[in-house]
């Protein structure tokens, strides 16, 4: 009797595990943020606009799958993905000496989030988990609305392991977000665009007649 009861409890437990949605806490780790190429541009005041969600899948960031690869439940985030990406961008700018502005700032970062996804490829004895964070980030002159620079940043991380649950999945997605942030941090194009905009603003100020 006790044996049947244990089996039933185990079955219910496993079903709950496979069929219940899972929520991941994903956030850019401020302590791991490094100074990068963006620090080579003179400090600028930049408004990081709310990130536009252009993902095909907006309701989830992945699926739980059974041994046959069939979807059994959703993988969700505790905070909306666009907010997670916006916070990462703000941290990167601050870490490199730039100042976060508001919507009256001369420069803005405009971001289209196109992918924020967790998935797995199953092998014979291992499973490869991978996370992707992809967004197009543009530096915009707020006065004219002109796009000064635009780049697609593609964060990715994968790890082969014997298995894993929420903690592993969180680590994979956090590493993919780190990779995305590192790419923004090391973008020579974005650095040049910020530097050029700041130089142009300084020239304009110099040319203004004093009152």
């Amino acid at each position, binding site marked *: 009797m006790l044996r049947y009861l244990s089996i039933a409890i185990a079955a219910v437990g496993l079903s709950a595990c496979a069929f219940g949605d899972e929520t991941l806490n994903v956030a850019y780790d401020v302590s791991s943020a490094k100074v990068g190429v963006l620090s080579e541009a003179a400090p600028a005041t930049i408004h990081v606009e709310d990130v536009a969600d252009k993902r095909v899948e907006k309701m989830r960031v992945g699926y739980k799958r059974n041994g046959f690869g069939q979807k059994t439940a959703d993988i969700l985030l505790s905070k909306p993905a666009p907010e997670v990406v916006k916070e990462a961008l703000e941290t990167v700018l601050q870490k490199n000496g730039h100042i976060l502005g508001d919507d009256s700032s001369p420069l803005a970062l405009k971001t289209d989030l196109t*992918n924020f996804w967790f998935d797995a*490829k199953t092998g014979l004895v291992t499973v490869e988990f991978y996370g992707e964070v992809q967004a197009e980030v543009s530096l915009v002159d707020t006065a004219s609305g002109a796009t000064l620079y635009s*780049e697609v940043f*593609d964060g*990715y*991380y994968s790890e*082969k*392991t*014997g298995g894993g649950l929420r903690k592993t999945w969180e680590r994979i997605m956090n590493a993919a977000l780190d990779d995305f942030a590192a790419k923004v941090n090391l973008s*020579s194009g974005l650095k040049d665009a910020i530097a050029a905009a700041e130089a142009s603003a300084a020239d304009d100020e110099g040319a203004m007649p004093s009152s």
Partner: protein
Amino acid sequence: MRIVAGLIVFIALSLAATATEAARSASNALGEIDFFNLYVEVDSSDRNFTVIDSRYEETGTGAALFGIAGALATSAAAAGSDNKKAEPLREAAEAIPLEALISDAVKSKITSKGEIEIADSEDAATHRLIINIHNYGLLRRAKDDPRLRAFLNLSWEVVDNKGRILFEKKRENTSAPDAYTLDEFTPDTLQSEFEVIAPKAGEFIGSQINYR
């Protein structure tokens, strides 16, 4: 029978543990590498020109680019259609000297900081940077935007002089900022787009090493 089953489970767990360990040790170690003399090589044996347009339209993502299987698998019809789109540009694409563009940019970026020397030969180096070119070509901008932009997908690793992989990055994808319709891509446009993004990809790898 029990012994055999136990043995199989043991072997499976050992393999899994080894794979996990290898992945972890190779992924977080760039900051710990004490570079002195670096030899840069670009391997193009996996270089493949492709257009991802119909496949993107089908899945709504660029997943085909990375060979992601499962739910995002694309049909043979979409792959065939993309092949036809790639054909007129293939010869021009294959003539683009991606290897030199990437290699020159990496070396220039690394030497600009003056902390690491570039070695002339593998034997003279303390470490090797091996960059692999994988898919490159044109990728649809979005499901609702039929324009395409140039992309380049690389992977890279740092190996010590004993051949041990100290760091590896399995995917380094770079896309061009500008998008055009397929008809607007001529051999000249294609070349000029790759003359922008291949050095950018190389510079980015160099920056990761400089700011590790």
